[in-house]
Each structure stands twice: as structure tokens, then as C-alpha cells.
């Protein structure tokens, strides 16, 4: 890595982008190999109706008679054209199926992120400042309980609380008719987003609390106070920038987890995102769709991690000046 230096932050971003592409290429090989190993797609599609003749016809239609390498290359080039092949179940181009679903899911994740990140930073920092006092004790225990609850339990509890049994404020499910966008039905977004926030915020805020406590104990924070700086300056200028660096990494991993872990939440709320698409695709053995989604989720991981590293570097001069 010693030779891979220079160029400041743009140079670093470029190197990381190239590295990210290499990672995605390797992921594509693994995804393709893994889905190949699942068995014969033609047999999967035809199920019990499979006769040797029909299998033969379908195999030809799906290019399964070609060598594996050719199949891989044609699939791989499809990624660059955004087509990702043709869905076995619907016979539509996978790219067209994905588009709206991707937007729907992204909306959920972005809403959840925009709410949960500031919320967890505030809760975590405040708990650290009030360490071992009432707010800290209550919030830390509450966060621990929430972290321990799986999303589907949270989702069901929210539905019971706000839609069905206790109150009747919000819709219990959030379907979006084809041809419409979810922001046309904002009521339906509240519970899925709340579920995701509750899935993410407790963990991030616990990490933020730990990181902030560590920073508040450092000599430079004590020194800032002994210099007579106002407490506000001590916190915002001296403590927060140092505490938030490690939290970026956690936020990235959590958001990336959301991109994959959204499946359950979308299923519970019957929300038409990539999660429910993935679920249908797996049930239907719709291999091209599964492959495409796996690639997209991998890309989300790579991109978020890159952003997290860039964020960490920006707030950490020791790393920045080394570039």
C-alpha cells in the first residue's frame, strides 16, 4: 500500500473507487458461481411439467446450452447495460423491474437514515455527557432492549400499537399500486420508516455514547476545559469531531445492513421495494433477479464503506495529511 499514496483526497477516492470496482467484479464471479450451483433453472421453472423436450427448448431459450464462460460474459455485460438479463418469471428485462422498486426502497432507507443518524448521534452524545445519571441509565437500557428486538417484532408491535388494536391512526400495510410512487401515500411510509429507525438508532447511539465517553475522558478535552473554553465550544469543536470518526464506520455498516435487511420490513408492510422483490424472486427461482439484487446490495456496501472512509479521513487530520 506504500506506493498507493499521493493525490490528496481526490487521489484516495479514485483509488478506493477502482478498488471497489475490483471488489464488485469478484462479487459478480461469486454470485454467478453460486447461482449456477443452485441447480438447473429450466427444471426449476418447469417444475413437475418438465419433459425432456420442453427442458431442451427452454435451455436453448435461456442460453443454458452455451459454455459457462459465455453465459457469464453475456450476464456480466448486461450489468453494464443495466438490463441484468430477463426475468424468468415475468419475461421482462430485470432492469425495468428493478427501477421503481429500487427507488421505493431507497426512499425508505434514506428516510430512515436521515432520521436515525442525527437522532442516534444526539442521544448517544447526550447520554455520554450525562454518564451514569438518569437520562443515560434510562436511554442505555431502553437502547439495549430495542437492539435485542428483531425488526419483525418491532414492526408487528408498531402495527398493533398504531394501526389495529390500540390506536387506529396509521395504515397497517403500505402497498403502492403499480404506476404510483410511495410519496403519494406518506401515511404508509411512517411505520416502515419507524421500524427501520428503531432497528438502526439504538445500535448507532450505543456506539456514539461509547466513542463520546472515550473522547470526553481524553486529555485534550480536559485541557480545553482548563483553557476556560465555553462548554459549547468544548463539545462541538473539541469532542464531537473526534468522537464521530469511528461512528461513521458503524453508520455505513448499519445502512448497508439496512439495504439487505429491509426484506423483512417490506414483507411485513407489503411495501413494493427490492426486499419484497428479492423474496418473490427467491420463491420463484428467478435467478437473474436474484443475481441483480445481490450485485446491487454488494454495490451499496462498497459505496457506503467508501463514504465512511472518506468521512473518517476528513475528520481525522492525522490520516488526511498522510495522503
Amino acid at each position, binding site marked *: 500500500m506504500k506506493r498507493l499514496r499521493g493525490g490528496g483526497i481526490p487521489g484516495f477516492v479514485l483509488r478506493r473507487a477502482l478498488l471497489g470496482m475490483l471488489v464488485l467484479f469478484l462479487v459478480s464471479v461469486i454470485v454467478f458461481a453460486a447461482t449456477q450451483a443452485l441447480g438447473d433453472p429450466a427444471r426449476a421453472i418447469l417444475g413437475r411439467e418438465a419433459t425432456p423436450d420442453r427442458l431442451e427448448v427452454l435451455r436453448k431459450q435461456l442460453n443454458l446450452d452455451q459454455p459457462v464462460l459465455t453465459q457469464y460474459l453475456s450476464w456480466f455485460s448486461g450489468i453494464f447495460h443495466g438490463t441484468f438479463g430477463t426475468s424468468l418469471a415475468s419475461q421482462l428485462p430485470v432492469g425495468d423491474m428493478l427501477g421503481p422498486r429500487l427507488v421505493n426502497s431507497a426512499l425508505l432507507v434514506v428516510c430512515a437514515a436521515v432520521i436515525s443518524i442525527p437522532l442516534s448521534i444526539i442521544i448517544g452524545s447526550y447520554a455520554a455527557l450525562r454518564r451514569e445519571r438518569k437520562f443515560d441509565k434510562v436511554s442505555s437500557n431502553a437502547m439495549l432492549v430495542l437492539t435485542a428486538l428483531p425488526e419483525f417484532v418491532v414492526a408487528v408491535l408498531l402495527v398493533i400499537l398504531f394501526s389495529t388494536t390500540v390506536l387506529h391512526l396509521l395504515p397497517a400495510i403500505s402497498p403502492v399500486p403499480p404506476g404510483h410512487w410511495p410519496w403519494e401515500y406518506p401515511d404508509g411510509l411512517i411505520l416502515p420508516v419507524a421500524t427501520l429507525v428503531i432497528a438502526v438508532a439504538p445500535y448507532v447511539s450505543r456506539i456514539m455514547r461509547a466513542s463520546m465517553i472515550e473522547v470526553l475522558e481524553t486529555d485534550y478535552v480536559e485541557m480545553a476545559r482548563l483553557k476556560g*473554553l465555553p462548554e459549547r*465550544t468544548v463539545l462541538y469543536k473539541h469532542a464531537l469531531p473526534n468522537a464521530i470518526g469511528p461512528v461513521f464506520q458503524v453508520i455505513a455498516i448499519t445502512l448497508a445492513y439496512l439495504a439487505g435487511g429491509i426484506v423483512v420490513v417490506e414483507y411485513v408492510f407489503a411495501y413494493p421495494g427490492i426486499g419484497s422483490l428479492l423474496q418473490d424472486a427467491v420463491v420463484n427461482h428467478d435467478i437473474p433477479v436474484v443475481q441483480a439484487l445481490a450485485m446491487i446490495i454488494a454495490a451499496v456496501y462498497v459505496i457506503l464503506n467508501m463514504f465512511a472512509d472518506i468521512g473518517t479521513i476528513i475528520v481525522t487530520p492525522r490520516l488526511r495529511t498522510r495522503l
Partner: protein
Amino acid sequence: MSIDQQAAVTKTGAAVTVRGLQIATTSGVPVVTDLSFEIAAGEVLGVVGESGSGKTTVGLSLLGHARRGLKIVSGSVLLGDQDVLEMDDVALRRLRGSLVSYVPQDPASSLNPALRIGVQLREALKAHGSTSDAENTARIAEMMREVALPDDPEYLRRYPHQLSGGQQQRIGLAMAFANRPRLIVLDEPTTGLDVTTQATVLATVRDLAAAYGSAALYVSHDLAVVAAVASRVAVMYAGRIVELGPADQLFESSAHPYTRRLVGAIPRLTGSRVLVGIPGHAPSPGSRPPGCAFAPRCQLHSPECDEKVPEPLQVVGGHTSRCIKALEVVKLQAVTPGERVQSPRVDSSAPVLSLKNLVAHYGDTEVLHSINLDLEHHECLAIVGESGSGKTTTARAIAGLHRDWTGSIRLGDLDLATSAHARSTDVRRQIQYVFQNPYGSLNPRKSVGETVGQPLQVFGIASGREADHRVAEMLEQVSLSASYARRYPDQLSGGERQRVAIARALISSPSVLVCDEVTSALDVSVQAAIVELLGNLQRELGLSMVFVTHNLPLVRSIAQKIVVLANGSIVEYGDTAAILGNPQQEYTRHLISNTPSLETARMEAVELASEFGPSHALHVTRSAGI
């Protein structure tokens, strides 16, 4: 405090007056008890004590600050007519950094890594009402020049990690003096700096305090450093000031047995004396005895000592001691350094270890350039130099811990492989290493017995009952009792841990013992005891030792030969007494002259007195030329 007393204080010109200060843990265990002292404007008061004596706690209390888990129980810290301990948060914030400022122990961790140094200097000014950018810029430039750092904007845009340790500490000083404080608290600001940097930092502190007429409280565990910078000294033991007086009197005719023993434990450049440590260790808060806290370790101990805590006893004007026998103690002969070191006869027929043309690298950088050294049988060879001189790299190469080297290292007539991995078991047994930090070098999950006994198993020397027996014997030899075998490292003090590390190294009867800064993490009295132990072991067992240190006076007490390293090359190499007594090289002379010691401090005190008159610098108006 009555109005009369206050008037008296103002008349004597005390910048700060501390009365009856009590600090305890939040659960009520007293940490600092009944502390009273004052500091005049322009005066530097040294506070000396070993770890756990409460000296840092006292320093911070002058800023009205108590660390987590501690609280200030009672007492007053008067700054003019304001009591710091009565102030609310707003008043305290205004006080800190303007009237009273603080210079922390570790500059590397006390500067915010995420902020440029210029920003950190500027906010110290801004926080105290100086909002004019132009004025602040001018003031910062002035401060930078006063601490001998570049004042150009480019330099101020640097981050702390782009500065050396000495530069970071001078930024700390600039920040502390920026608002021309009336009182400045310095908490071991030179610990961790090498002698040259330490000397410049000390000179800066003295000059700034004099120039600004600031009172200074200088906290340190190093008596020689305190002697170099302070005009009066308070010695702390177990949370109390046990002796307080003018520096020269206090060190020359100590009136408390503890001070006397501390002074005796300081290694001296002038003669190779046996260092005498203080047996036992200081009681921790909560387990302090009802009477005099030093009594259990005191040679003059008598039954009355245990009855109640002795009140301060005036020895002469301005010199007090909390010892019921103070007047006897002060009449004892001038502090006697230990007797002369009797070095074992060096057998120079064939060197046990010889380095030929040793060149070592770290990555692409050559850090050692052609080192040639011989270690004779029964000899202790000291390797000295400033940080970055390559002394530890040499030691690590010998032990095979640093393996990026060329040249030859011979053990007897055997050429050694570069890394310890590639060496035979017997070679590994013959070269043993004791590390600098005994807190990191012992496995916390292993008992002392397991740690010390492990080499016996690894080298197949002994096992079972025979091994246990040898471990017990070895522990006795390093002055620990055999019962220590069942303890774990966290139950031991720093000095005890280092003894365990030495026992582990010696149990396999090595032919060469490499000691890497083995005392630098320890208090003076403990350091003396460890050096005493190593000296005795060397005489008894005929050890051959490589002793790496940055502490020159220590070398006189232990090593027959010395090699001075600078930037990875040998500057001077030969007999210890000859080289330290009559250095031939400018670099060696420079190292020696920068080493603080009680003797040179006394000479400087005389010079200072003639320069400023006998009274200790009240409102000295001297420009801060550095």
C-alpha cells in the same frame, strides 16, 4: 481566613494562598489532606512526590478542577481576594486559561488532534474576551517567538501530530502564558522529553514566569528537574506536604527522613555511588496509617510516630517538616550518597557479545550506521543517547527482536541469525531481555509463578517441583518473597512488576541480559532499588549486561563502559568514569550539561540570586529573551 491574615498575605505579595485543602474520592476516602502553602508572584514552587502522592490532584485543584471520581471537600485557594473553590461554573470558566493556566504532562495527548495549532492558540485568547483578530494574531506571533518556535502562518496551520514532542510542549507553554496568567500550574511538563528538549523547556518556564511575574506551581517526580526550576519545594507523601522550604536548604539539609531518602536515591553524574532505594512502598489512599504515613518505611521510626499525624515543625524560617524528629533529622550529616560502586572484575580475554559493522533499517530509512561494540564477561555496558538515537534498536537487534539488520552479532564464537525465530533455543536462552514498561510486558492472565517459571519449561531446564523450587529461589533473589508466585500482575506495584520481569529473564541463567530503559517508568526511589538489585545480581552472578537508558547519571551507578549514540552512530565509547568525567566530544558534553542535577541546580541558583538579588524574584521585569 480572617481579614488580618488576608492583609498579611497581600503584604507578602502571595499570588496564591492555599489553606486547609482537602480532596477525597467521591466515596469519601481522603486523597489530599490539610494542604497549605502560598506562592509569590514570579516564584516557582516545586511539588515533588512519587506516583499516588496526590501532586497532580493538588495542581488541578488550583484551577478548581477535580478529576472524575474525586471531589474537593474543603479548604480555600485564594487568588488575590477571590476563592477559586467558591466560584460557580461561569466564574471558573473565566478564571481558567486567563488568571490561572495549566500545562499538562503529555503534550501529545493534550492538544486536540483534529484542530490546527493556530486555532487552538487563538481560541485560548478568544475565550477570554480578546476578539480582535489582528490583536490575537500579533499576540500569537509574540508567544511563538517567546517559546522559540516559528511564528509564520504556515507553521500555525500545522496539526499537533506534525510537531515533535518538544515543539508540542512549547505550544502548551505558549497557550498557558497567552493571557498573561497570575498563576500557572505545570504538571510534569518534561516527562517523556529527552534531556536537550527538557533543558530548553525548563529555561522557557523559568524565563516566562520571571518575565510575566506569574507564580508557578511545578509538579514533578524528578527532584533534579524541580531543583533546576523551582526556588521553593514542597515534598508530598501520601497526600500531605511533609516538607516545605527553599530548594537548596531542602535538598542539602533535609528535615524529613523521606526527603532525605529521596535525595539519596537520585543518581549523580559526579560519582559512581550505589543508589539506595526506599524499602516498601507508599500507602495507597484508604490504607494510610493513622500516624505519620512514612513511619512504616522510616529508619528513625519510634512508637510516638504512630500516635498521630505530626504537625508541621518549623526548622528555620520558611522551612517546615512534618516529622516529630525534624530538628534531629536536619542535623544529620549532609545527605550521604551511597558508597562507591564496587564493580566486578571485567574479564577481557574474549568478549561475550560483539557487534561488527551493525547496520539497521526501518523500512527505507537507515537508523543504525556501522555500530561496532564489544561486551566483555561480567561487564555492564550502557548505551545512552537522545530519543531517536538508535539505542533501543541496537538492543532489539541484539535480542533478535528487530531483524532488519546487516553486519554481524557474535555471541561467544557463534554468529547470530538476524531474528530470534531463526536462532537456536540455546541462543535464545542465553540472551534475555527486560522491557521498559513492566505494565505491558507481563501477561495479566498469568500468575507471577507461571510467568517466571515459563522459561524453565520452554528451555527444558526444569519442571514440576524442581521448577517451583527454582522459581521461589529466583523470586527471593530479586527481593520478592516466594509467596508472590501465586499473585497476578495487577496485584503488584510497578517496581514489583519490574522485579518479576528481571526474575523471568534471569531464571534461565543467560549469558547476556539486555535491559531496555528498565527504570524509566518507575519512581526515583523504586528506580534506585531496581538499579541496586541489578548491581548486586551482576556482582553475585557475574552477569554481562547491556543497559539502555537516556538517564546519564544512572549510568554512573551501574555501568563500567558507556557508548554514546547520536543519530544511529557511535559518538563516544569507553570507560564510564573517563567519558562522563572528561568527555571528548561536543555532543557528549552537551548531553551532560543538559542533564538536570542537584549539583548544577545549586550553582544556577547562586547565579540567579546574584542576578536578581537574594529575595526570590518579585515582579521581575526582564524581557523574555529566550
